[in-house]
Structures are given as structure tokens and as C-alpha cells.
């Protein structure tokens, strides 16, 4: 009888404890971002500034360095030349850069790309579909996708050259 009471009480308290612990975890600790490392990347289709069709699925076998940016965001502007420099270096090693602009006008984006002499594909996310699908909040945000289409890292904030290089290394196919 006494034993039974202890078991009943303990199990009730344990159930309550687990429920509360999970709630607190979900609210205060858990990462709620849509795209998380380990997830499979979400396929998208956009046209770059030259009108070329870019489909993520079509880049299977390559590492993809997905950068979300805007001309009005100073750290985005700052890391563009770094990305350009390393793009030429890592392109042959199977890493592709796709820079997705947050719904600005073509005129601005083209002017910007020309001024900086950017050669990697840049696409404007008209209607913010891709931004929404990946749940991008702050700019810049970089999503690293490996050759199997799996997200290996989500990084928000400006990057130094070393960081960009490390990221490229991370998604270089065959590593």
C-alpha cells in the first residue's frame, strides 16, 4: 500500500517534471530557426542577374555557399570582396557561391555587382520566397550545404576572410 502510494506520487511528479522541463527547454534554450545544421536543404529556383536559372538541386555534388545579403547591410557589403576572392580559388575545388539578395531592385543590385566586379551568381529573391523558406531573420546569413545537399552550418553575421576560407573548406566535396 505504502509502496503503491510512493510509485503513484513519484510517477505523477516525474511526468509533471518532464513536461515542465521540456517547456522551459523549448522556450529558453532550443534553437527555433527553420534551417538547422543536419537538416536537408530546401530546394529552390531563382534566376540570377544574367537570367540564368539556378536550382539548388542541380548543384548536387558540389558544396554550396549560400549567402543572404542586402546592399543596405554594411557587413554584407564588407564580405562581398572576400567571397569574390575565394570564389575563384574554390570554384575549381567544387564549391559554388550563390548570393541571394533580399528583394532589392535590379538596378541597385546590378550597380553594386558591377562596381565590385562580382562574378559569382547573384539572384534577387523577389517576394522573399527563399528567405521565408529558410527562415532568414538577420542579414547577412550564410548557409553551408555539402555535396549531398545537407546543411552543415548556419551562420548569422559578418565573416572575416579566415572564416570564409574555413567555411569553404568545410563544404569542399570529398572531405
Amino acid at each position, binding site marked *: *500500500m*505504502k509502496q503503491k*502510494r*510512493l510509485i503513484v*506520487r*513519484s510517477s*505523477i*511528479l516525474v511526468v*509533471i517534471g518532464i*513536461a*515542465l522541463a*521540456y*517547456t*522551459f527547454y*523549448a*522556450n*529558453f534554450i532550443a534553437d*527555433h530557426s527553420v534551417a538547422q545544421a543536419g537538416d536537408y536543404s*530546401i*530546394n*529552390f*529556383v*531563382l*534566376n540570377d542577374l544574367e537570367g540564368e536559372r539556378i*536550382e*539548388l*538541386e542541380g548543384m548536387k555534388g558540389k558544396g554550396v555557399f549560400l549567402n543572404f545579403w*542586402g*546592399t*543596405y547591410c*554594411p557587413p554584407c557589403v564588407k564580405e562581398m570582396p572576400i567571397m569574390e576572392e575565394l570564389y575563384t580559388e574554390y570554384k575549381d575545388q567544387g564549391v559554388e557561391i550563390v548570393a541571394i539578395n*533580399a*528583394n*532589392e*531592385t*535590379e*538596378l*541597385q543590385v*546590378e*550597380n553594386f555587382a558591377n562596381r565590385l566586379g562580382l562574378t559569382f551568381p547573384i539572384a534577387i*529573391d*523577389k*517576394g*522573399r*520566397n*527563399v528567405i*521565408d*523558406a529558410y527562415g532568414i531573420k538577420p542579414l547577412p546569413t550564410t548557409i553551408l550545404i555539402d555535396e549531398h545537399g545537407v546543411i552543415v552550418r548556419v551562420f548569422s553575421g559578418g565573416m572575416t576572410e579566415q572564416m570564409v576560407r574555413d567555411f569553404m573548406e568545410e563544404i569542399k566535396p570529398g572531405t
Partner: protein
Amino acid sequence: MSKFTCECGHKNPRGTFVCESCGKPVEGNEQKEQLLDMKYEGVARRSQTYTTTFIDKIWMFFSSVKVGIWIIVVTLVASAIGTIYPQEMYIPPTVNPANHYADEYGLMGQLYYQLGFHNLYSSWWYMLLIAALGVSIFIASVDRFFPLYRALKTQRVTRHENFLKRQRVYGTSAVDDIDRSFDLAKEKLKEKKYNISEENGNIVAEKGRFARWGPYINHIGLIIFLIGCMLRYFPGMYVDEHMWIREGETTVVPSTGGKYHVGNEEFLIELYDEDDEVFKEAMQRAGGPVVKTYQTDAVLYEREDTGAVGSEGELIEVDRKKIRVNDPMKFDSFALYQVDYKLHELNTMSFTLENKETSETFGRVDIDLFNPRSVYDLGNGYRIEIREYFPDYFMNSSNIPTTRSQIPDNPVFIFEMYTPETPEGEVSFVGIRTNLEPVGENNYKMTFVDVETKHVTALIVRKDHTLPFLIIGGIIFMIGLVQGSYWAHRRIWLQRIDGKVWVAGHTNKNYLALRKDIEFAIADTGISTPIDQVEEEEITKDKNN
């Protein structure tokens, strides 16, 4: 479980104050003169009986009503503190809260911010308080409901003398014909909708026992409600997104995985007529126009599934609705609410090329601020090129012209003007009320002609799968509350002891009504009206003063 046997033969759990069956007060309580403490029928609350293990101690802590009341009081005080200054969600979104509280409310404000009171209701300790309240409600109810249920089920008709004597309403009287009196009283009590039970010529009349379950039912409602609140933090249960849509634009609805898009065909705002006969005076006092209604003519589209998000996939119209405040658009498990608007956002700016000397104008360019072209050919060798465009211009800290956002709140262009007269081009810097010539004097200038604006609507996207819990919890809570508050559990005992009639009454509230019922029942029986021992004491006390 160790039990003890009362003289009536009933086995009571250890810790009982009053025998569950006959009501005989347990030894130690027996000889006292005061009224019996009848809450929970004097049953043994198990938690207080067994407190050996750690688990039992936790259980006992939450089972205590005293602890429960303290939790309520602390929650109450904490909630009140949260209203001293506005919470962070109610301060302007553009300001930095770290400075805002200090600037607006001085030292106290700064302290308020540093102690985290600006986000009090989502703080871990406030949530812990609410959680403790929920646990307390649950355990305290479980701990009381079962013993009370058993005690009310096992109660006997014939009660112990000591039990009757120590009820608040109690009296004895000698009657000629007890049988006749009891029969009369029974009839009267039945008239008053009492349930009568008899045993050895003794009577107990009872009504409204279900009111005793009211508190437990309302507590169940509260628990379900609190579980609903808890579920909000579980993934996929709750969506709260904000979206702005310009007239004529279509945007993806956030958190629908790109499936739904919504278009704003037109935004309408209507003000009250300032000469309205009924409202005229009040509007004069308010000193400005009052918004009567605003609405978005919304079209909902579902995107064809192409296996990829982005630019491809046809949008198929599925619904349209005028979304207003208090009248949201619903689809799937989502709802779109009208919450805000921005009127007259710049959309198109028109300029003409003007010869500064002759004031002669050449053509007109209409620049779509959301999709400007790079070249506007005016014919006859006149041509405008846009070298730079800043939708929301400002000069950054290193003195480079740049834009703050993609919203054209302060559009600035750097034009290159080509004419047969100036084939190398002249550069001008044009914005709202600015027209500069940064690289030397020009012969031509871009003259502002016209502007077109559009309204922007703000919608909130909401999905809330916790609502069913809240609704069911709320309904159960209200049922329990009404059940417990609007009905009273009344019992009247009529017993023959030593040739006399003993009357006793108990109710969980409203003794006046119980006494009226007793008076009604014994009216013609010859039984004298029992006294209210509490009132009696009061009167004696008054007389002594």
C-alpha cells in the same frame, strides 16, 4: 494502510478527525466544546499523514492550500510590478530598451530594466510561478478529492451525538409524536427538493452535494487551460508572424512553407464624417479625425507544388476576402488579421528634363521606385541614366551615400543626363527637395513633376493549435466555478435520542438559507427551531459588552 475502528464499526484511515461514517469526533477532538471543523468532512488528507520520503515531502508541499495561496499572492504582486512601466513589447520598436527605460523613467526605470522587469511575463521565474500554481492546483485537488468523495459516500444516516451537538445549527426538543413530526418534516423537505435517507427512524436530508465537486471541476479546467498555455512552446503549435503588403503586391505568407501567398488588391481607410450629428462634439474634443474602418482587399493564392521554392510555380487563387479588424481571413489552420497600415508610401516619382536657361522641358520619366530602369530614352538624343539609386538615403559614418533599407522613404537618385548639347553627360543628385550638382555646374536639371503613392497594409499571420485546449479548459472551469458558487451542499439531520428530537444542520455556505429550510420543514411538527451557535455566541458577546 493502518486504520482504526470507530465505535460504530467503520474503519477510518489514520489521520481522520471525524469518523467518515457516523461522524464521531476522533479521540482528542471528542471532549472539546467548539464546533467541529467540517472542511473536507474531517477526512484524512493523506499527504499530511505520510511524510516519510522526499517524494512525499514535495507532494505535501504542493498539496498545502497555504502554499497555494502564497503562490497566488506572489504571482499577483509580480504581475502588478510588471505594469509599473510598459513592458518591452509596448515601447517603440525603434528605441534601444537599455537606454529607453533610463531616459524615460530615470533611475527607477534603469533599475526596472536591469532587474529584467521589462520582460517580466516571459521571464523564467514568472513562468516557474505559473507552473508552480498549476502543480499546486493539481496535487492539492487530487489530495482532497478522493478522501472527500469516499467520506461523502460512506456517511451514515445515524450520527454520533457529539457530531450533532457540535454542528453550527443544532437544537433538541421534546415532541409528543415523533413519527408524525418526522413524516411531516419529510414531506416538507421533499418539497424543498431534499433527498431523504432513513435508518432506524433517523433522517438525513441532503441536497446540492454536487456543489462540493465544483472546486475540483474548475481546477481540472484550469489545469487543461494551463496545459494549453504550455503547449504553445512546443514546436509547430503556434505561429505569430507580421507582414507588410503594398497595394498591388503579392507576398508569401510566412510560416506556410511557401505554400500560401496573399495579394493586397486595394487598401481602404474610412474616417468618421466630422460633421456627423451624433459624434460631432466628441470628435471636436478629440481634436482630430477618427478612423471608422480600414480593410485590405486580400486575395489568397496557393502555389503549385514544383518541388522547389522561388520564382517558379503558378499561383492559383483560392479565396478572397476584405480583411478588417475583428474580421480575420481564415484558411487551413491559419488566420490573417488586419492590424496596422502605412498610408501614402512613395511608389512612382516622375521627373522631366529641363534646360536651366530656357526652362524648356524634354519628355518625362516615371520611375517605379521598386523597379527603376537604368536608362530612360527621351528621344531626339535626350537620355537619362540612373547611375545610383538609394531608396532610403543617408550618409553613413564614412561619408558614403547609402541606403538604410529597401523601402523608399527617402529616395535619392544620381542621374546622368545626356542631351545633344551635352553628349558627355551631366551628373545631378536628386532627392525629395534636393537637387545638387556634385561635379560642376550643369546646363540641364531633373525637375520633379509628380509622385504617386500607395498604401501598405500590415497583417498578422496566426496559427494557434492550443486554442482547443484553452476553450475546453475555459468551459470546464466556468462550469465548475458556477457549480461550486451557485449551489450549496446542505444537510439536515433529524434524530431521536433518548426520546427527544435532535436537529442539526450543516452547509458549506449560506447558513441563513439552511435555517430557513429547517424552519420551513419543522413548521407544524412541534419541533422547536434549532439555534445558530455562532450567532448565539455573538449575541452573548454583545450583551456582555
